[in-house]
């Protein structure tokens, strides 16, 4: 724990002694941390009273892992890392030519995504592919799209938004309620949901224009919570915590439907066996198209005056103002554009689930989306996509790890640990790579050639 004294100790025995000392200390600290929470468990007995359940073996494992881990860290891993760092800095820096795979990464990724459902069907069969297309494909792509949408606000304009899920909720409820009340189709409501969410983005963005940094984050968090609380309590319209169910499915531009009873049912039109997998595959392409639209718009906007203004605003607001950029409209367009994509994603979410309730729009969702943006490297579309795959895909993968049951016993449920691991991963990645997975910025404007700017040279604005 005490890494304050970082003096080099040359003698190996000295190092081992220190490692032992620190290992014991770490063990004692972890004993203090875990003795009440891991050593004892509060459970309800038959009379519904709380009783304690003792788990000293588990506590011993926790303490042993901490102590041994710390010992190994100090005695072996850290000296080795330092030696490697020393030898790496001794070598001259050579410019590495990027390989074919790296240069064409996004093209390869898009090509893979286009054939992904077919691969899943080919390997797992029509019914078996459901899980892979739905749980992994659609789930990850929703987060990719949301994170790309939020990236416009946070990554480009530098406005820290902790309430992004509010716009997701606006989009979802717009589709859910309008389609039920007025029977409008998905394709008519998708743009409408985007417009409504953008409108809310402006309404919520307007009062917070003067705020900066952390304060802005907290106010947006408050707005996100207010919208959720209104959704819970305004029961006449939203049906409160029960949520809106029976939301109609989307159709392929009104030509083919996915309702089994309809005359233009998709499977019937193509003479395929009945399966719910076609709808999921259709949804997969739908969210892929929406996500790519978000990416395309972001890339194009970055080259337009408004995009340049966003990035300038992120770097230095005062300089922006003194150069005559209207910071009010610049910030509002960022909020509105980001919110619009959140609204699109929201109406897609409603169509996919067929059910929306305030439960889906808690603060945790905002935190997840924001963490994906930051872990991805703020502003880097590829980095954000990688972060979404790692964080969302990784935790989804945990559901599949049934073999863990063989190790930890039959009542071990890996799903329980999903958010715990997510939180820990957020901390670990942040400490290990504070600039995110792709920590460099491609400049939009350049003199002779485009050179990636290492993120250690860039500072965030205080917008």
């Amino acid at each position, binding site marked *: *724990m005490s890494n*304050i004294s970082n003096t080099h100790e040359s003698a190996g025995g000295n190092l081992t002694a220190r490692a032992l000392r620190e290992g014991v200390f770490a063990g004692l*600290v972890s004993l*203090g*941390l875990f003795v*009440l*929470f*891991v050593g*004892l*468990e*509060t*459970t*309800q007995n038959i009379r519904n009273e*709380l*009783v*304690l359940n003792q788990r000293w073996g588990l506590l011993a494992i926790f303490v042993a892992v901490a102590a041994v881990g710390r010992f190994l860290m100090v005695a072996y891993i850290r000296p080795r890392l330092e030696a490697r760092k020393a030898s790496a800095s001794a070598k001259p820096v050579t410019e590495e030519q990027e390989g074919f795979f790296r240069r064409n990464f996004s093209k390869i990724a898009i090509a893979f995504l286009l054939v992904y459902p077919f691969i899943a069907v080919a390997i797992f069969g029509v019914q078996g592919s459901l899980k892979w297309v739905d749980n992994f494909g659609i789930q990850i792509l929703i987060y990719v799209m949301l994170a790309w949408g939020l990236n416009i606000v946070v990554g480009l304009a530098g406005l*820290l938004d902790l309430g992004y899920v509010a716009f997701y909720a606006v989009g979802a409820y717009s589709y859910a309620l309008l389609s039920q009340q007025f029977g409008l189709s998905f394709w008519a409501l998708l743009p409408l949901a985007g417009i409504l969410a953008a409108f809310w983005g402006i309404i919520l963005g307007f*009062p*917070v224009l003067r*705020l900066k*940094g*952390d*304060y802005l*984050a*907290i*106010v947006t*968090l*408050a*707005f996100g*919570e*207010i919208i959720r*609380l*209104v959704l*819970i*309590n305004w029961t006449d319209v939203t049906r409160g915590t029960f949520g809106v169910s029976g939301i109609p499915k989307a159709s392929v531009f009104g030509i083919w439907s996915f309702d089994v009873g309809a005359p233009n049912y998709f499977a019937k039109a193509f003479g395929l066996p009945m399966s719910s997998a076609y709808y999921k595959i259709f949804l997969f392409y739908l969210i892929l198209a929406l996500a790519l639209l978000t990416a395309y718009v972001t890339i194009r906007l970055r080259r337009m005056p408004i995009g340049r203004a966003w990035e300038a605003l992120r770097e230095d607001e*005062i300089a922006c103002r003194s150069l005559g950029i209207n910071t009010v409209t610049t910030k509002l367009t960022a909020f509105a554009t980001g919110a619009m994509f959140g609204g699109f994603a929201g109406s897609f979410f409603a169509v996919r689930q067929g059910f929306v309730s305030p439960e889906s729009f808690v*603060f945790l969702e905002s*935190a997840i989306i*924001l*963490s994906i943006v*930051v*872990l991805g490297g*703020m502003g880097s579309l590829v980095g954000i996509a990688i972060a979404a795959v790692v964080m969302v895909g990784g935790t989804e993968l945990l559901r599949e790890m049934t073999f863990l049951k063989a190790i930890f016993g039959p009542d071990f449920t890996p799903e*329980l*640990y999903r*958010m*715990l691991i*997510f*939180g*820990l*991963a*957020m*901390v670990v990645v*942040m*400490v290990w790579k*504070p*600039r995110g997975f792709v920590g460099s910025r491609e400049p939009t404007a350049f003199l002779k050639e485009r050179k990636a700017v290492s993120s250690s040279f860039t*500072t*965030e604005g*205080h917008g």
Partner: protein
Amino acid sequence: MEYFVQQLVNGLTLGSIYGLIAIGYTMVYGIIGMINFAHGDIFMLGGFAALITFLILTSVFVGLPVVLLLLVMIIAAMLTASLWNWTIEKMAYRPLRGSFRLAPLITAIGMSITLSNFIQVTQGPRNKPIPPMVSSVYNVFGIAISLKQIIIMVLTVVLLAIFWYVVNKTALGRAQRATEQDRKMAALLGIDVDRTISVTFIMGASLAAVAGTMYLMYYGVTVFTDGFIPGVKAFTAAVLGGIGSLPGAVLGGMLIGLIESLWSAYFTIDYKDVATFSILAIVLIFKPSGILGRPEVEKV
């Protein structure tokens, strides 16, 4: 009138709890300029430590006097929460000091998710009710004041007095105030800045743990998600009072407690959290420096 005074008493009780949590936010923000998002979960962790200590004590020593029981619970909660906050600061926040602005906030959010899910995994997701510890209610001029409320308010006053003394009259407090004003200069003058920051986290966590214990005693139930809403409200209190200002945090806590109980008494209870969040937004928009805070000067 009696109804109004009754709500006033309830509000001040709640406000004491918020005020104690808010001090942790305001101190950490003052000294390293970061919103310690996990502070609400430290409060929840303190509540759970108190709960488990309560269960140990009541099952081992039957018929222990309530005063002793509460005292041991508070001490256990303070120790556990302080150790947690100290470890978290060392492992998760210290490596990111001096990194870009968003990094500590994201780490703190990650830590908050980790802590609440750690408790969910180890202690289960259900509500944890305990039998009432103190149930006497006194009737003063037609207003019902329970012993619980008296304990909470008296304890808050005592803790604030100790805390005020430490910050204003001791060498440790001087070091803290110096670090808050100018970290580099303080280090040059021989103040161990790392240690001062660690102590700040420990102090904040101890007060939050006391608040957690009293929250458990007052409501008689706790659950792993209990960190979020009281945490955000305490943060609102810190902002309302002026973030970085210690008397401001207590004042803000009292105001938030009063607003919440009066709103529930005279308007709909459903929207009481909306009221708190709206106040947060309104204060930040119109007077970001809060009631007692110093206005921030923007340097170019």
